[in-house]
Each structure stands twice: as structure tokens, then as C-alpha cells.
């Protein structure tokens, strides 16, 4: 009969010496690691250079304008009066509209895919959402300006006539009592830009949420069912609490994308530089649209001012994205998820 034989300890030998278990890489491995490290360094330098250069270029304009850069709303660089108060506000408003529209749809779609849809349909639906993420933003922009704008005008008019008493929905120049009044006061608004950006945000949020929901432990799920929960009851007590980190993280990831979207916004909006919270009103702006529309005529201080605006936008998306990954990593399910 065989058994593990534990070697008898020699009392006289004292404590056994601990062996060093660090591996000593061979010559080929040392070269390999040097190569790997240099590729890491290269990526670090390239990506770091963007950030450093951005800050360096922005310094001139920021020094010129000082704190008024954040409080001025006009953009007249030649006259020394420029700031991103309005532009940044519009950027945030567009992103907020986009997320407000996208969140219910993406959450519902993610839950539909993981919980409700027949198993046969699931992989097709997943492919569909991925496809939605792959459609180029310029296509969404074209669709938004040519098709969605016409449809959304009616919604905007309806919102402003019934909910005009809510500050966000009031529109100066709109006449709620005259249904035949011109719809031009509603075109090119923050609301419509937000709707188009929502189309890009939905798949991003949905992918993260679905990923997290699909990792819900089967045991907990079946435990809820075994206790007599309905499907919605199970979702309430198991799926949603488990996926909370993913929901918040996915939402913020979508927000980060919405803040930086350029070309769709450029196609929709007509730029304006005054501060207003009325999202339905004609005209809007965004930092990236500002850069796209002004870069060609800018030089010297003007370019530096654009860089400063870009830097602020980058900082904003950076904070949003890091918060998103923090939420996702901190959630119970986050270890394996992609974002």
C-alpha cells in the first residue's frame, strides 16, 4: 500500500531555510522582456505625448484668458473674448439628453436579451446590438439630419406646448396656441442632436449591461425562481442588484462617448454661443463641433484656444470613463467584463 511519506523532521537542523522562488529568466527571455517593455514604453510615450502636447498648447490660451475661459460664453478670439461656458454647457446638455433617452432603451434591451427573449433569438439580438455599435457615426448623423429631424420636430413641439412650464422645455418664440406656426424654432436643437447621439450611446450601454447580466450566477437566479419569484421578481432581487455596477458603469461609458461625439453633432446643430438651458430651442453647440468648425481658420492664439477647449473636453471624458471603469471593476461581476 502506498502512502505519502512525510519526512521526519530533524530536530537538530533547526528551521529549514526558505528557498528563493523567483525565476531567473534566461538570455532569450531577457531579450523578449526588453522588447515587450519597449513596446509598452512606446505606447506610453505616444499616448502620453497627446496629453502633454494638449496641455502645452492649451497653456497659452488658458494663460491669456485665465479663469474667464470658464465663465465667458462667446468665442471671439481676435477680440480676446473667448470661453467655453456656453459650449461646455451645450456639450453636457446634448450628452444628458442622449443618456436620458438611451438609458431606458438600452437597459430594457439588455434585460430583454438576457431574460425575456427566446434562447433561439438571443445570439441574433446580440449580433444586432453589436452591429448597431459598428455603424459609423457619420451614417447616424446623415440619418438624423434627413429623417429623424422631421419626425422629432413634432415631438419637440408637443413637449414645448404641454410641458413648456418646465424650464428645460420652454422655447422662446414658440406659440403653443398656434399649431400652424413655423417649426423652425425647434430645428437643429440640443434635443435633436441628443436623440442622434443616443443612437450611438444605446449599443455601448447595452453591450456592457448585457455582459454583466449574463454573468449573474445561475444558482442565485434559480434560487429566486425556486422560492416562487416571477421573472420580474427575480430580475428585481437578483439581476439588477448584481448588475448595478455594470448599469452605472455602462451608462457612464455611454456618457463619455456622447460627450466626445463630433460629426453627427456637426451635421445637426447650428452653432450658437449664448447660455440657455432650453434643450428644445433652435441651435446648439459642442466642444468637438466647435473644433471641427473652427480649426481651419484658427492660428496662433485661436488654435491654442481650441486646444484648451479640447483639453477641457478630454478631462471631462477622462473623469467619466475612469468613474465608469471604477464602478464596473468594483461591482461583483466586474472582473471579467471588458470595459
Amino acid at each position, binding site marked *: 500500500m502506498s502512502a505519502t511519506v512525510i519526512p521526519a523532521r530533524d530536530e537538530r537542523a533547526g528551521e529549514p531555510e526558505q528557498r528563493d522562488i523567483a525565476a531567473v529568466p534566461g538570455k532569450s527571455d531577457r531579450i523578449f522582456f526588453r522588447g515587450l517593455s519597449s513596446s509598452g514604453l512606446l*505606447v*506610453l510615450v505616444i499616448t*502620453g505625448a497627446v496629453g502633454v502636447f494638449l496641455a502645452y498648447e492649451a497653456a497659452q490660451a488658458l494663460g491669456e484668458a485665465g479663469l474667464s475661459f470658464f465663465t465667458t460664453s462667446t468665442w471671439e478670439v481676435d477680440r480676446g473674448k473667448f470661453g467655453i461656458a456656453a459650449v461646455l454647457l451645450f456639450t453636457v446638455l446634448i450628452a444628458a439628453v442622449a443618456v436620458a433617452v438611451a438609458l431606458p432603451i438600452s437597459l430594457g434591451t439588455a434585460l430583454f436579451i438576457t431574460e425575456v427573449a427566446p434562447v433561439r433569438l438571443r445570439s441574433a439580438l446580440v449580433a444586432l446590438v453589436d452591429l448597431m455599435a459598428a455603424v459609423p457615426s457619420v451614417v447616424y448623423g446623415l440619418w438624423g439630419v434627413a429623417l429623424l429631424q422631421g419626425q422629432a420636430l413634432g415631438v419637440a413641439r408637443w413637449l414645448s406646448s404641454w410641458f413648456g412650464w418646465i424650464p428645460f422645455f420652454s422655447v422662446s418664440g414658440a406659440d403653443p396656441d398656434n399649431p400652424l406656426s413655423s417649426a423652425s424654432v425647434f430645428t437643429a436643437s440640443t434635443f435633436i442632436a441628443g436623440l442622434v447621439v443616443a443612437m450611438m450611446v444605446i449599443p455601448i450601454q447595452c453591450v456592457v449591461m448585457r455582459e454583466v447580466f449574463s454573468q449573474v450566477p445561475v444558482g442565485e437566479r434559480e434560487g429566486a425562481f425556486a422560492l416562487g419569484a416571477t421573472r*420580474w421578481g427575480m430580475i428585481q432581487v437578483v439581476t439588477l442588484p448584481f448588475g448595478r455596477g455594470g448599469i452605472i458603469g455602462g451608462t457612464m461609458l455611454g456618457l463619455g462617448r456622447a460627450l466626445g461625439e463630433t460629426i453627427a453633432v456637426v451635421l445637426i446643430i447650428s452653432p450658437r454661443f449664448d447660455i440657455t438651458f432650453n434643450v428644445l430651442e433652435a441651435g446648439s453647440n459642442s466642444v*468637438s463641433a466647435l473644433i471641427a468648425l473652427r480649426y481651419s481658420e484658427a492660428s496662433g492664439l485661436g488654435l491654442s484656444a481650441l486646444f484648451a477647449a479640447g483639453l477641457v473636453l*478630454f478631462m471631462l471624458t477622462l473623469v467619466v470613463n475612469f468613474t465608469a471603469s471604477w464602478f464596473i471593476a468594483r461591482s461583483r461581476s466586474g472582473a471579467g467584463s471588458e470595459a
Partner: protein
Amino acid sequence: MSPTATTVGAPVGADAQRSGVEVASPVDNVRTTSTAGEVGTVCPQPPGPGLPPQQRRALGTMSRRDVMVLVGAAVSAVCTALLLFGRLTPLTGRLGFVVVAFVFFLATYAALVSLDDSRPAVVDRVMAALFAAAGVVAFVALLSVVVYTTYRGWSALVHVNFFTQDMSAAGPQSPLTEGGVIHSVAGTVIIMAICLVLTVPLSIACAVFLNETDNRFSSLVRTIVTAMTALPSIIAGLFIFATWILILGFERSGLAAAISVSLMMLPIIVRSADVVLRLVPGNLREASAALGAPQWRTVWHVVLPTARSGLTTSVILGVARGIGETAPVLLTAGFIQSMNLNPFGAPMVSLPLTAFKFVTSGVPNLIARGFATAALLMVLVLVLFSLARILGGRPAGRLSPRQVRKAAQQSAADLERIEHMAQEVQR
């Protein structure tokens, strides 16, 4: 007999006694059931002549009744909305109709379900209907994007010259039978080729670096790369515009566009390749290390081949993202109407930029061309995307039949080689 073997059973019995569980043998159990009939497992009697034959129960979640309720609620809601719109009230508008019909549907559905189910079941059905509605909204939106773009571009898409000519001979007012976008197709292909050359080796190497080393430097690189995925694409374009074109004085060109798009793709590919490599099972690495392979051989022969399909997917998805980027190309590539195959020192356009410029021109024919270009771009992305799904459908380490055959051949050859060597040694 070794001392270990005798004690194996002990803790279990001890635990059971401590917790007061009565450990009964299966035989005891059966006897209890058959005699006393109080506690214990009751075996159902086998179907015999006295009992009706057992029927297999349907485990599906939708019964016929459920379907009827659903269809009934839908029909009733549509009819009510039809009645309201234009007949009973002065409501108009397609969107309003859909919303009103949906609200009626929910109400009718809830009422019908509540006829024979409890409140929690009603809430459950209504929530499921809401989720399905969200899915339908997303699907309809995507469908409308695809169909509308194709529809608006159809008049240009039907002419072969759209795919074979450039715009050098065709003015803005030219009929759709003249001119095309072959120059932007070529530009897109060239720009993406440069992007691939620039990003793929570097990003895969960097992802391997992040996975194989675990020190402060690699976590710094990971943090910076994560931060850079947040970089708005327009800023990547602005960066290249300011450095490459304004400071270094190069001309706007395909190369500049490719660099700016690469700048945006690089962190994306590194991130997703990092995730894919992390999925390679640890025991494969350990097996390779246990066989005495140095780490670079482990990476080259085990890790990378195992993760190949996932890596391909991450590269293709990066390309699909980069190919549709308009903003950085707008700033760095310039604009041109004729064919240019030289990415250095002369303007070059890509498909999304062409679509953008055409549509913003405001000329009807150019707008049609713009939508056609967008449709073409969408088809291109769709092809790339299907490729990614076909190649990346398998998880790390799962081989296709062809790869299995190849691996079997390889190991048969290895066996022969080893046996041959063994014979040599014996001799």
C-alpha cells in the same frame, strides 16, 4: 495501512453527529417509508394498468393562452387607437398613434392577464412587454437607419459608374450616370492599411506586455492606455493637425489621416487584446512552463495561438471603428475629387469624409451620392463585422475542425520523431 486512510471517514461522521443529522443508510430510509409512511422519500408508483399514461409536460414559458392574450391585447389596442385618431378625438401623427396604441396595449394586456393571474404575475407580464418594447425600439431605429440610407442613396447606387469612376470629371450638377467614389474607396483602403501596419504589431506587443509582466510600470501603461480610450477622436485629429501639418509642415495627406486614426485605434485594440489574452487558461501557460519552455516560447507557441481568434476579432473591431471615423480625417486628410494612390504629400479622402462633404454641399445629386457613399461604408463595416464574428465566434483555445486535424497531424509527427530518437538512443 497508513494512518491517513483510517481517519478519512471520521470527520464526516463527527460533523453529522455534532449537527444532529441522523445518518441513515438508504436501506433504512426505504423501510421507514414503506412501513410508517410518515417521513422520508416517497417513490411514485410506476405507471401501471390502473393509472392513466403519463404525459410529457411542456416546459416552454409561453402557453397557447398567453399567446392569445398577447394577440388579443394587441388587436384591441390598435383598434382603439384607430378609433381615437380622427374619429372620436382630433389626434393626429404617426408617432402619437404608436405611443397611444402601446399604452392601450399595456392596459388591455394587464387587464386580460389579471383575469386569471395574481398581481405579481400581471406586473411580470407588463415588465416583460416593456423590455420587449425597448428591444423593438432599438431594432426599428437600426433598421430605419439602414433602410433609409440605402433608400436615399439608391438612385446613385444603381449606376455602375458609382463604383468605378472618381469625381474628377463630374461637377456638382452632373447626372448620377457620371462620376463615382472609387477614389474614396481607394483612400479608405490605403488609410486603413497604413493604420493596420502602424497599430497591429505595436498594440499586440503592448497587450502581451501588459499580460506577461506585472509590475508598477505595466500598471502605469495600463492606466494610461485606459485613459486614452477616452480620447475624443476630434482631439486625435487636432493633435496631428497641429504637430504634423502646422509644426512639422507636412502636407495634408493619407498618411497624416492614418496616423491620427491609428492614435485613436491603438488604445482600443490594446484594451480589447488585453482582455482576450487574459482569457487564455492559466494551466496552458503552466503546462508550457513545466515542460521547460522559456517565457517567450510560451507566449509565441501557446498564448498567442490560443488567443488568435480573439485577437483577430479585437483588431477587426478596431478597424471597424477606425474606418467610420470622420472627424480626425476631416482635419488631416484634406479633400480631393480625383483618384490619388499616393498617401504621402497629397490630399486623400476616405468614405465617411466623402459622405459628409457630399451631404453638406446641399446639391440634390451630391446628397444622393453622399447617402450612397454612406450605404457603401455601412456594407464595408458589415462585412468586416461578419468576418469578426466568424473568426471570433470561438472562445480561447477552442479549435475549428481544421485546426484540430492540423494539431493531430503535428502531434503524430512529434510522436514519430520522438520514437525515432528513442530508437537512436537505444542503438
